[in-house]
Each structure stands twice: as structure tokens, then as C-alpha cells.
């Protein structure tokens, strides 16, 4: 029987937490928009144009007018699952030492720039990497930080009286609401880029988030135990 080299990329916990987060984040953004509709006041002035969040056709297209009560009940129910899943993910990263592969390392900024140039086909060649390249490390860690501030600003809007100090720390009620909204936009952008990158990276990479491993053909020298050990030490 033919053998294959199996590289274990994502642990069971990471895969479950990732895929549980996906629908939860979707429900949180969706219900958040149902709430936002009731007071859809945010605009962004860029020079001579104004970007309205969101154009009116958008609300019609997704059928989300006048559903505030529904949005609130969904948001305040699924917030628990979203938060719990996020906290478990963070604790897992810390205790499994997976964070060492995920948090930016010392030369992350410089390397991320090289990755960006490479991805934009400006420059060839990538810096050597472990599980994630520097750009991924920054992006994924950024997403965790976004999640953290999502919970903080969310709590500040949810209980601005009882958690007065938290609300003040966010710069007040209105500021907290804007921050919560901006974080949502950033989350959406993260997801968009993430999905594009996953598509570009190809099937094997995507499939590894479900199976946990990627396979490679065995090269002749792989049979030498020293080489396998070498691969292991890369962990």
C-alpha cells in the first residue's frame, strides 16, 4: 500500500472552535445589523463623497427593516455562545502553547510586509515560516484582539449605567457604540480577506481546517528518520 506524509496542522480543538465561531459570528453580525437599522446614523466623509452605512437598498436586499426586537433578542442570546467560544479558544491557545505559532514574533512587521509584497506579486520569495507566516500571525492575532474589544465595547453599550466605569473607559456611550460598529466592519473585512486568501491557498489548505492535516508525497529522503525528526522539530 502506498504511504503518504501527513502533516498535522490544526488540532481537533482549533478546528471545532473555528467552525463553531463561524455561524456564531454570522448570527452576531446579522442581529447586530437588525439593531443598527433602528438608528442607522453612521456616515463616513471621504473628501467629496459620503459613505453611508448602509445604502437603503442594502436593507431591502437583505430584508432587515423594522426587526429591532428580534435583533436584540438574538444578539443577547447568542452573545453568550460567541463569548464562551472565544474565551475557550483563547485559553486553548495559551495552555496548548499554540499561541507561540500564532502571536506575532519579533520580526513580524518586517516579514509581514514581505508577505504582502509577495501576495501582491510585487516580489518573489517568502521569508521562512512555521505554521503561519508573519502576515497571518498579525491578522489572526488582530482578530482575537478585535474579539476582545467586541466584548468590551458590547458590554459597555449593554450596561452603560451599572458598568459606568467600563463605558467611560470606552470614551462614553456614543463612542462605545461607534467602536462596536467599527469593530464589526473590521471583522467583516477580516472575514472577507480570510475567505479570499483561503480560496487562493487552494483546496488542500482549506481541507486541513476540516481534517486537521495536509498530505504530501513522500520524497526519498523522508524515510530517513533524521529527516522526520527534523520536520518534527519545526513544530
Amino acid at each position, binding site marked *: 500500500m502506498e504511504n503518504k506524509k*501527513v502533516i498535522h496542522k490544526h488540532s481537533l480543538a482549533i478546528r471545532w472552535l473555528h467552525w463553531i465561531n463561524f455561524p456564531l459570528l454570522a448570527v452576531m453580525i446579522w442581529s447586530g445589523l437588525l439593531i443598527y437599522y433602528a438608528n442607522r446614523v453612521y456616515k463616513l466623509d471621504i473628501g467629496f463623497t459620503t459613505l453611508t452605512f448602509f445604502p437603503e437598498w442594502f436593507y431591502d436586499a437583505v430584508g432587515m427593516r423594522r426587526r429591532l426586537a428580534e435583533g436584540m433578542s438574538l444578539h443577547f*442570546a447568542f452573545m453568550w455562545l460567541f463569548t464562551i467560544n472565544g474565551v475557550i479558544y483563547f485559553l486553548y491557545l495559551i495552555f496548548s502553547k499554540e499561541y507561540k505559532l500564532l502571536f506575532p514574533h519579533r520580526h513580524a512587521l518586517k516579514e509581514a510586509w514581505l508577505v504582502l509584497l509577495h501576495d501582491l506579486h510585487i516580489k518573489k520569495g517568502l521569508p521562512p515560516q512555521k505554521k503561519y507566516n508573519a502576515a497571518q500571525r498579525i491578522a489572526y492575532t488582530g482578530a482575537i484582539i478585535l474579539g476582545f474589544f467586541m466584548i468590551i465595547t458590547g458590554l459597555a453599550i449593554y450596561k452603560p*449605567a451599572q458598568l459606568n466605569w467600563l463605558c467611560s473607559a470606552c470614551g462614553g456611550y456614543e463612542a462605545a457604540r461607534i467602536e462596536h460598529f467599527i469593530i464589526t466592519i473590521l471583522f467583516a473585512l477580516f472575514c472577507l480577506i480570510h475567505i479570499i486568501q483561503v480560496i487562493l491557498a487552494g483546496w488542500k489548505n482549506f481541507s486541513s481546517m476540516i481534517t486537521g492535516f495536509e498530505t504530501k508525497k513522500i520524497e526519498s529522503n523522508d524515510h530517513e528518520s533524521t529527516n522526520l525528526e527534523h520536520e518534527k522539530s519545526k513544530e
Partner: protein
Amino acid sequence: MKVQIWNTKKVRNRTILSFVVFFVMMGLAYCFWKWLYAQPEEGGALKPLRKILIQNEKIFKPLVSQEHLVKTYPLQKAEKKVRVNGWDGLETPLDANWKLKVVRKTGDTIFITLDDIKKLPKTDIVFDFKCVEGWNQITHWGGVKFSDFAKYYELDNEIQMEYVGMITPDKGYYVGIDMPSAIHPQTILCYEMNGKVLPLNQGYPLRLIIPVKYGVKHIKRIGSIFFSNTKPPDFWAEEGYDYFLGL
């Protein structure tokens, strides 16, 4: 990353297993969503979500404390053009002989005129009024603390109960409020806005100002007040909103 050598059969079986579990779980998530929306409604909200809202209330209610005060602002910060949102309960003409009706625990009722209420110690508050829709406005209100009012009219037994209910004279709008929030030191029976008599569209002659709650609980034109150990009917809680709505 750990590297192993597996035979192709094992690779294939593991891949199939993982994808089957993946699609089953995604399918279950989809079914859960469909199930959720197939549930009956309770007070306008899907029953499971209503249950969670009630649990949330239990979790966050202990936060309500007489010591936790809502942030107040200097007078000049108060908005001159105060937003009017909602006419429910104000659509019938106001009776010129308006009196506040208070139903005691015993069932006795007392009727109180606006002049009598104005004789009680006055409290002013400038705070950030927050609507459930998401807008907020710093506004200035004056009236008597609900706790002072209760003390003066000897409602001591009444405020031992769990809830206060308030209804407009035409019964077109009504709220239910948990007692810790009602006797919070910033909760007032309000008859002034920006230092002047409360306008009709802001609830003349008497409205509730309860900064620890969203705006929908600040009932305008109070007709009667009663006390209960069960949740009094609440206009917006019947339309799918949370009952507690504490901030």
C-alpha cells in the same frame, strides 16, 4: 507541526470521517436555526430567546445597586430640543381634573394632585437618556424621587413588593418596573423638563424618569401606579422586547 507517515487508506478514511462530521454539524446548526424560528412566540419573542432574556435579567439584576449611579452632566450640557419618540397613551385628550391614582397593597386607592406632588422635595437630573433604538440625548428633568414619594405617602409595604406597574389614563401605554430600579435614587416622578413645565408631548402632567432603564420604560402621562409581586403588563415587552431593559 507533527509529521507522520500514513497509508493512503487511513488518509482517505480520516478525510471522509472529518468531512462527514463537518457537514453533519453544519447541517445541525442549520436545523437548529430553523427549529428556533419554528418555535412559538412568548410576548412577541421566540420562546427560547425569551427564556434567555429572562435568564439575562437574573444575571444582570444583581448589578442594580443604589450605589451605582448613572453619570450626570452639568446643566449647560442639556439638549434644548428634546426628542419626542412615541405617542402611545397620549392620543386621547388629557382630563383637566387629572389626579395620580395610587393603588395600595390593600386595594385602597389614593388620588394625588400635581400640586401635592410639587410640594415634595424636588430633584433635578441631567443625564444621558438612552433609547432602545440606539440614539441617546443628554436631557434635564425635574421632579420628586420615587423613593421620596413612596416614603411620604407611606408606601413602605408596597415598595417591599417586587414590581411597580404604571399605566396612562387611557390605558394606551403601560410599563412594569422591578422595585430595585424603581427606588433607585435617580428614579423620579417628573413634572419639569429644562426647568419648565413638562410639555404635553413629553408626558404632562407627570412622567417617569428612570435613568437605569431604556427610554421605553420612562412612561409619559402616568394615570395610575400599582404594586405587584408578579410582572405587571408592559407595552413593549409584549412586542418582543426584553422586560427588564436595565442599563
